[in-house]
């Protein structure tokens, strides 16, 4: 596809030219500023990518745009907040948290063993239950453990959502499923609002990662935080793990088969319901990880009813831009969106006669979405339909 390369390289050349113009002709910004903006874009883009993966996986298999996914992301962030800020817990609460997490552990082990009656799955659940009850009632949870537990619990939530809201509608018209997803989204938002009405929840676990960081580049200073290392790395790690799971395991193969043709896969002995549950489990776990990193990045969580909406819709746009149904597409779309939001506003800084593009940054996601839908509805990497997961 030479035209794709030509357009892509042409855009990159344009961006480089524009940077040169802003730095040397307008003298409005220095090069270090663009390095900073690039790092920031990568950081935000990684977060969008994590959320977008959940949209794309679910769409790939049951052709559902899971509008509740943004709210699953919100739940993940708030669970982690409760875990690290309220621990150590009194015994009854520690038991409840540990039971939910142990359930998540069993789900994860089940991916490997394939049955809940397997001794390793049951044993793992019991060990997790005992260990976590002790840990949660005795010590303060640090942010990393809070993130892992929140991922487990949110994964369970994803499976439960699928079980109660989507599985009864298998085979129903797709519009019914979509409406159910919207209802689920409202349900989660308003439940969150009942539990937690505060406007801004401070999300500042004691960690070195959020510290301010500055370093010299091209004779000037880049301002950022240590999260610039953490967030893209964590995202890369999770994406690699997911890719390995999908390409190298039996269940991953079953997922790819179900994405191609669920009925034929079922005829070949694939348990499609189990595959779908797995998809929700993994997607929700990624969303929870995204939520925790999101909280670390911005230092606070918005009120539950609104927190998941905008990131969710933008990540959905990212998934479509990358090519919905494709795993690399979601990552590319997410990172692209991060760049678009931060880097394009940096390319057009405010000058004396021009107000700058800062206030329009939220619209870029949707302008690009419209362009992609008009010019290339299958998304950037969506041409190979057989790769859908």
């Amino acid at each position, binding site marked *: 596809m030479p035209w794709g390369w030509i357009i892509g390289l042409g855009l990159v050349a344009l961006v480089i030219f524009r940077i040169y113009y802003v730095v040397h002709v307008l003298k409005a910004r220095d090069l270090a500023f663009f390095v900073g903006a690039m790092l*920031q874009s990568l950081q935000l883009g990684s977060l969008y990518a994590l959320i977008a993966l959940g949209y794309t996986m679910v769409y790939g298999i049951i052709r559902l745009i899971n509008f509740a996914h943004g709210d699953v992301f919100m739940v993940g962030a708030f669970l982690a907040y409760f875990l690290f800020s309220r621990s150590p817990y009194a015994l009854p609460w520690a038991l409840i948290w540990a039971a939910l997490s142990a359930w998540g552990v069993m789900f994860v082990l089940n991916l490997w063993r394939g049955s809940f009656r397997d001794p390793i799955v049951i044993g793992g659940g019991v060990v997790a239950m005992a260990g976590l009850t002790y840990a949660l009632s005795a010590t303060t949870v640090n942010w990393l453990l809070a993130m892992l537990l929140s991922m487990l619990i949110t994964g369970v939530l994803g499976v439960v959502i699928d079980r109660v809201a989507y599985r009864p509608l298998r085979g129903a018209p797709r519009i019914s499923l979509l409406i159910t997803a919207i209802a689920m989204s409202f349900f989660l938002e308003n439940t969150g609002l009942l539990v937690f009405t505060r*406007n801004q929840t*401070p999300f*500042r676990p004691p960690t070195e990662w959020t510290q301010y960081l500055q370093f010299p580049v091209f004779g000037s200073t880049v301002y950022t935080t240590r999260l610039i290392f953490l967030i893209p790395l964590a995202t890369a790690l999770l994406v690699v793990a997911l890719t390995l799971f999908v390409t190298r395991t039996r269940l991953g193969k079953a997922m790819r088969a179900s994405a191609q043709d669920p009925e034929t896969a079922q005829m070949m002995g694939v348990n499609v319901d189990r595959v779908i549950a797995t998809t929700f489990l993994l997607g929700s776990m990624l969303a929870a990880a995204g939520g925790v990193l999101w909280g670390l990045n911005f*230092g*606070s969580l918005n009120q539950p009813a609104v927190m998941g909406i905008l990131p969710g819709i933008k990540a959905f746009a990212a998934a479509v831009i990358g090519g919905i149904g494709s795993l690399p597409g979601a990552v590319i779309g997410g990172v692209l969106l991060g760049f678009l939001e931060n880097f394009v506003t940096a390319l057009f800084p405010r000058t004396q006669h021009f107000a700058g593009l800062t206030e329009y940054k939220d619209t870029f996601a949707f302008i690009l979405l419209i362009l992609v839908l008009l010019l290339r509805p299958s998304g950037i990497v969506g041409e190979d339909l057989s790769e859908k997961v």
Partner: protein
Amino acid sequence: MFKKLFLAAIALVLAGTALAQAPIKIGVNLELSGRFATIGNSTLQGIQAAQQQMSEVLGRPVELSICDNQTTPEGSKACANRFIDEKVVGVLGAISSTMSIAAAQNLQDAGIIMISTSSTNPATTQIGDHIFRVAYTDDFQGKVAAEYAFNTLKARKAAIFRQQDDDYSFGLAGFFQDEFQKLGGQTIMLNFVANTVDFSSQINDARGFKPDVVYYSGFCAEGATLIPQLKQQGFNMQFLGADASDDSQCPTSGGAAFNGYLFTGFGGPEVLTGAAKQRAEDFHKFFNIAFPKATDFNGFTLAGADSYNVLVQAIKDAGTDNEAAVLKSLSNLKDYPGVSGSITFAGTDGTPKDRTIAFFEYLVPGQNGAAWSKISKFGLSTAAASQ
């Protein structure tokens, strides 16, 4: 015959007491949930404390009809319509300019008095003759903040963060900008909307401008996120806020970033002078007994109390709860000894003449904001400034 007269007399007395006991209804339109819930509840506590101090007027009890506008203009309009149906004498609230302006037109058309507690946008009281306020206006607040930034802090470049979709924040930022530029400073205006969490683009713009002072004209719902992000990104200049920052949500949610944060706000007992100081202190003591668990006693509490006090005083002066008579006595109110200073509505558009604005500073020791405190630095009177 005598027996009949006696019965008639008893009936008359009974009828009289029944009439006297019919409560006077006052509407309360506040942001009790949603983005401004904390300051909404501070205001409500102020109103309720004032009601406990003065629960009867003209020998009849005062009943508050409380309506939560959920911090939405639609909710505020719905509250206004509810009060029109309930035929209340007057409405106290709303707090913010956006919600006050939303309700004001409906109440003005229905001929119901409205006393906004803390709306500071000049446009609010210009909607009609039924609309009053207890606070000062933003042209004054923006001016004193700009003068302080320019003259005392010696700042020459100010980055102004404003919430674009709020009448108060938008207006105030404009007044600050005008005055700061008039004094000879440079400004950059950075916009955001309600519920923004990611301020990175605005911060990038601010960094390119290299400000000496940051002026924040928005509310704590966004400020509690913005200020820590600014600090985290290496902005170590003085931050200056306005009366919407007089909200415990700022230091408790924003944490250590709010240490040393300066803001202008509704003057309290520390900065009032003379008899007004005594009244404010007495009210504070009464308030602590009435609401022992309240975490905030701030400008919103005082404004809430005084909105109630002036309305009840106007009913007392009128000698009736007749709408027109109460409006007349309220418009002619002179030197009412309020807990936030003396209040005069005579000869104004509904904005009292002598208001005290104070400069506050947050002290937030430690990383989380649990142990925050607030000190008043000094006060300025609107009456003295206009002379």
